[in-house]
Structures are given as C-alpha cells and as structure tokens.
C-alpha cells in the first residue's frame, strides 16, 4: 500500500465536503437558487390550487390527481433551480479552477449532496403547504416521507449529471428540461405511485424497491460517467 493510500478516503470525503460547503457558501451569498426554487414552487402551487377552485377536488379524484400535481410542481421547480450548480461554474469561469482543485468523483458527490439538500429543503417547504391547501388526507405519513426521500434523491442524482452536461452546451435552460425529463420519467411514475399508496394507506409494494434500484443505478453510472463529462 502506498503511503498516501490509507489517507485516500478521508481526503476524498474532505474534498467532497469542501465542494458542498463552497456551494452553500456561494448560494447563501447570492440566494439565487433558493429564491428561484422556493418562489417557483410556491407560485406553481398557488396556480394549481386556484385552478382547482375553492372546493378543490373530491377525495376519490384527489388520491389520483393530487400526487401527480405535487410531483410536477417539484419536478419543474428542480428544473428551474438545479442546473445552476454547474452553469454558474462555466459562466463565472471558475470551472477550470475546480477541475484543478478537486477530483471528479469528489466534485460529483459534493455537488450531488448540495442538490440533495436543496431538494430536501424544497420538499420540506412545499409538502406541508400542499397537503394543507389541497386538504390532502395522508393515511400513511411514513410512506410519504419515504417517497419524498427516495424521489428527492433520484431527482437530485439524475439532475446532477445532466446539469454538468448542459453547462458545456448552448441554450442551457431549455436543454436541461429536454435532456432530464426522459431520464426522470421512470422515477416520476414510481414516486407518484408510492405517494398515491401513502395517501390511500396501501402498502408500498414493488415500487419502493424499483425506485431504490433506479436511485442506485443513476448514482453509480453518474459517478462513472462524470469524469468523461467534466474533463476535456
């Protein structure tokens, strides 16, 4: 074993945490992603609620419709805010410095962790308001939390690699939606089914296992493909 080998894991983890800390420091300085994500989600939620009218939807319709609306709000909010993690590096010309200072895998994990905390914050903000405004009765709250955790992780993992790709292309904003939505579609179908099961109080079934498999596959391949995307 080489002398540096025993320190490899702590070094790598320290690099990833440094990237994560740097992302949040930059974010708290400008608060662009936080404001974009939060305001976009709240505005869409209000529009959806107003469109359904003061009486909302019946309980039978609600269990079918409301989980779909919740995840569409989260998906479009993510599309509005998450690409910034990499786009900002290219626009402010800090990408080269980042390439020199961090290993690609640590960088990917740091950015993923940042996206994950951003999505978790968004879910923590939106879900209680959504449940209250829409009068959504959730029979299995634990399953809903599980669906939000696994679904949020999938959104962050799928978006991180796509954000790294579009940051190096033209027309970044529209391209993110075009590239990420086909990748996130299986996740959406599974997580909507899980949320519906949580609302109705049904067991999670196979959907939870498949969702976790999706999360693991996208993370592993994202980690393997990221050096190709990141390094010229």
């Amino acid at each position, binding site marked *: 074993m080489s002398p540096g080998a025993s320190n490899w894991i702590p070094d790598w983890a320290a690099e990833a945490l440094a990237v994560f800390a740097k992302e949040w420091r930059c974010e708290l300085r400008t608060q662009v992603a936080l404001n974009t994500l939060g305001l976009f989600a709240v505005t869409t939620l209000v529009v959806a609620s107003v469109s359904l009218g003061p009486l909302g939807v019946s309980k039978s319709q609600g269990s079918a419709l409301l989980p779909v609306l919740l995840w569409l709000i989260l998906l479009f909010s993510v599309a509005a805010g998450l690409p910034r993690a990499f786009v900002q590096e290219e626009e402010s010309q800090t990408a080269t410095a980042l390439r020199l200072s961090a290993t690609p895998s640590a960088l990917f994990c740091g950015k993923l962790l940042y996206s994950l905390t951003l999505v978790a914050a968004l879910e923590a903000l939106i879900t209680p308001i959504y449940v209250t405004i829409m009068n959504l009765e959730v029979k299995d709250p634990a399953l809903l939390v599980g669906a939000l955790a696994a679904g949020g992780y999938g959104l962050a993992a799928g978006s991180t690699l796509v954000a790294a790709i579009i940051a190096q292309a033209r027309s970044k904003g529209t391209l993110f939606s075009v590239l990420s939505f086909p*990748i996130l579609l299986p996740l959406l179908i599974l997580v909507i089914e899980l949320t519906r099961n949580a609302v109705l109080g049904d067991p999670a079934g196979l959907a939870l296992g498949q969702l976790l498999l999706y999360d693991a596959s996208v993370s592993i391949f994202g980690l393997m493909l990221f050096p190709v995307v990141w390094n010229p």
Partner: protein
Amino acid sequence: MKKTLPWLLWLWISAVIVGAFYYAPLAAKFIGKSSRILFFHVPMAWVSFFAFIAGAVWSLLYLLRGRQERHDRAAAVAIQLGLLFGVLAIVTGSLWARIEWGAWWNWDPRQTSLLISLLFYAAYLALRGAVDDPEKRGRLAAAYALLGLVVTPFFYWVMPRLAPITLHPEPVVNADAKVEMDTRILQVLLASTFAFTVLFFWMHNLQCRLQALLARREEARG
C-alpha cells in the same frame, strides 16, 4: 460485392413485400387484412431498438478507444436511423391500432415505452446540435447515450404500471419461450427482419461515409 449488395437487398425486400401480400396467410383473430402490416411494423421496431443499442456500443467505443471521431459519427448515425425506424414503427403501429383497437393511440405499455425512448434519443440529437466543438460534442453525447442505456430498462418495468393490461399481440417468442405462429407467417417475418437489419447497416454505412466526406470538406475549407 459493394455494387451487388444494394441490388441483392432490393431484390430481397421486393420478395418480402410479395411474400407479405401473396405468400403468407392472414393471421387468425385479426380484423380483415390488418395482420399484413405486422411484417413491416415488427422489423421496424426491432431495428429501432437494435440501432439504439448499437449507438450506445459505439458511444462506449468512442470513450474507451482514444475518442476517434468515426466512433462518435457511427453512434450519432445509428441513433438518427433508430429514430427514423422508431417513428415508422409508431406510424405503422398506429395504423394497425386504428383498425384493430378503434383508436390511433392507446397508451399501451409497448407504445409508450417506444415513444419515451424516441423522446430520449431526440434529446440526444438536440444535445449534439447545441455543442460546436467536435471533441466536446462527442464525449457529452456519449455520456448521455450511456446514461440512457441505464434508464431505458426501467421503462419496461415501469410502463406496465400505467396500464397493467396490454392489448398488444404476444411477441414472436411468447412468455413460455415458444413460437406460436403459422410457419409461412414466421418465414416472411424473419425474412423481413433480416432485410430491415441489412437495410439499417447499408444506410448506416452510406450515411457515415457521407458525414466523413462532409467533415473532410469542412477541414479543407479551414
């Protein structure tokens, strides 16, 4: 051989067309003569999926073997052809569905899986169009194509959840790993699948050569 291959191919395809309309009997349980379109629809769908997998393999070769432009070009052309055959499969499938099911589009799991795959690969082409530098375009597109290869199998697990009952006829090899089909229908279907596969390779070769010539002309112009 290079000159005779296209003629042999056109001869083979002509024989398949004649076989589809005059040799193969009408399939049981199908309305009117609608079963004849399947001799073209099934091979088109097969070539589409084959082209997407070939595109991913060429993308992998591009990343592993010194990022040679010919591998990137081969991947892009395969995916373009996969889209072409995929659209044709959807159109022929819709024509058949209108006769058999009474509606052009039914969100059948297999229809939906193919549609989402087409959306993914159309996004791949959009990505290529948004990057000017050839090296950067090659590696970004290759990474995206390989990510698609990971996500695509999920469609086949997930889509049946939207519509658990499919009206689609059984695949050529059914769930019991048996082929339950009239011998003459099977012969024409296999001949057609072979013809479409060779057609794909012929078109792929032509298009790759054309793209290489265009790239060389661009280089010469500076």
